[in-house]
């Protein structure tokens, strides 16, 4: 099966012809398979945000192509517009884009732009609101009266309501407390389960990668440095470190325990896994 999203030799240069000229991404060949949960990591300025803005046609490549379902997304204006709805993009701090009087109307903004009829819009708003755990009473509130985490979820629901077949999120959990983070990750997983969508998540948190993601793509200096399962990527801890990234804290602890002679498997990335493995060393007692 061909990948649902693919870039070929994608290069983007900002401010061409001014003293601020800067190559953000260079010859990137990226692909996302249908239905996979992809993690995109890389330090600040590695080109992640630039890459994802190409995937729904917000940025035009300086050179190279972006293919959605095998078709060039810049083939025609109509095609680009369609892709906007097919590839939902949630920006960093999306709560700053809320503008409507009620949460309901804000979530309805995307579906309304798609030109759907009122019953369909209503169905989608309610569906998206349920996906992020909003109740009926939340929908009539002003989005500005919500808490930080709720605002974020309202904004994410606004993109989910378009029922995109690919959902891209740029650091969806940045700046939230642990519970807020858990809720968002949970919402994204629910969305994926219900819609079979492809999810691409940009994150700085190795713990989130370890918990949620099928495959990891690592960007460094505008290029794709690694791509593989989390086991494959985390096994290259040294290299990650060189790019200003790291493996999950628990993996570091496991590594240390292994070097102290404990017989633990090297591919433990979540606290649950590690707890089980360590307990089984002691005969499996809780």
């Amino acid at each position, binding site marked *: 099966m061909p990948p649902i999203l693919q870039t070929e030799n994608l290069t983007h240069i900002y401010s061409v012809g*001014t003293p601020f000229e800067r190559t953000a991404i260079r010859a990137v060949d990226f692909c996302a398979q249908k239905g996979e949960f992809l993690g995109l990591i890389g330090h600040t300025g590695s080109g992640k945000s630039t890459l994802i803005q190409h995937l*729904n046609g917000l940025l035009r490549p300086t050179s190279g192509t972006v293919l959605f379902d095998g078709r060039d997304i810049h083939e025609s204006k109509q095609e680009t*517009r369609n892709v*906007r*709805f097919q590839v939902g993009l949630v920006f960093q701090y999306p709560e*700053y884009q809320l503008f409507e009087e009620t949460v309901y109307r804000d979530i309805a*903004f*995307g579906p309304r732009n*798609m030109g759907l009829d009122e019953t369909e819009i209503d169905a989608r708003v309610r569906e998206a609101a349920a996906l992020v755990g909003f109740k009926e009473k939340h929908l009539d509130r002003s989005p500005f009266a919500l808490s930080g985490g709720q605002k974020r979820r309202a904004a994410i629901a606004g*993109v989910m309501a378009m029922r995109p077949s690919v959902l891209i999120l740029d650091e969806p959990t940045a700046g939230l407390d642990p519970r807020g983070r858990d809720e968002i990750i949970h919402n994204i997983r629910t969305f994926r389960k219900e819609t079979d969508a492809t999810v691409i998540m940009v994150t700085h948190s190795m713990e989130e990668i370890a918990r949620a993601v099928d495959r990891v793509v690592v960007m460094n200096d505008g290029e794709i440095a690694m791509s593989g399962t989390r086991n494959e990527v985390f096994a290259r801890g040294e290299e990650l470190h060189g790019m200003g990234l790291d493996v999950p804290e628990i993996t570091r602890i496991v590594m240390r325990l292994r070097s102290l002679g404990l017989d633990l498997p090297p591919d433990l990335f979540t606290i649950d896994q590690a707890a089980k493995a360590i307990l089984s060393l002691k005969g499996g007692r809780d």
Partner: protein
Amino acid sequence: MLKDITLGQYFPGDTVIHRLDPRTKIVMVGVFLVALFSSGGLIPMLIPALFLAMVIALSKVRVRLLIRNLKPLIIILSFTGFINLFMTPGEPLVSVWIFTVTLEGIERAVVLVTRIVMMIMGTFILTYTTTPMTLTDGIESLMSPLKWLRVPVHELTIIMSMALRFIPALIEETDKIMSAQKARGADFETGNLLKRAKALIPLLIPLFISAIRRAEELAIAMESRCYHGGEGRTRMRQLQFAARDFLTGLVGVLLLVAVFGIRGLLQ
């Protein structure tokens, strides 16, 4: 699209023009404008034109950038040119229907249009080669005599420098919100005037909210660092005239003398 707005933007460089004292540059812009508007005809205008060409060459600012700034003024420029071309009385050259082109008309149109173009280029050179901070430092220093009249010069200039400082930040913010709304299918580019104005609501509301939030945060940050206005405040960077500033001043005097001299000779 928004990235093309370069109003008040600084282009880094290390040329003589960049290094000039901001006060010198501001005064020279004034001198240049006086020279430009005092040179009545095409021939006297060659002098400020020569001066401008020299400054552009020295500052290494790309001419293409300067020309790009003229784009929004195309309508005004063509209007000015058009009116003067056809409405100036004098020796008729060609006459079509109610339009009559005169020799004087051609000259006046060319003079006025080049004058506006040069005025804009000259002032843009100032903002291109001077950081907003230095620029407001210069303005504050030039306006400091007004302190005797109890004008709050420092407060005015700090407001100005903050406004300047926030332009790029707000442009960036606008870009971001625009992209975010476009990702939800917002369309800012098609439709009639009413539809386009309506399309701006999803952009303007978040933008205003964020501007107010920023202002509030900035006020708190300033207060927590005990900012209390200009009284007794010292500066990290002291403005100091160097030899090149005096030399520039001399060039300015020469410029004025040349323009008024030629004008006198031609009359």
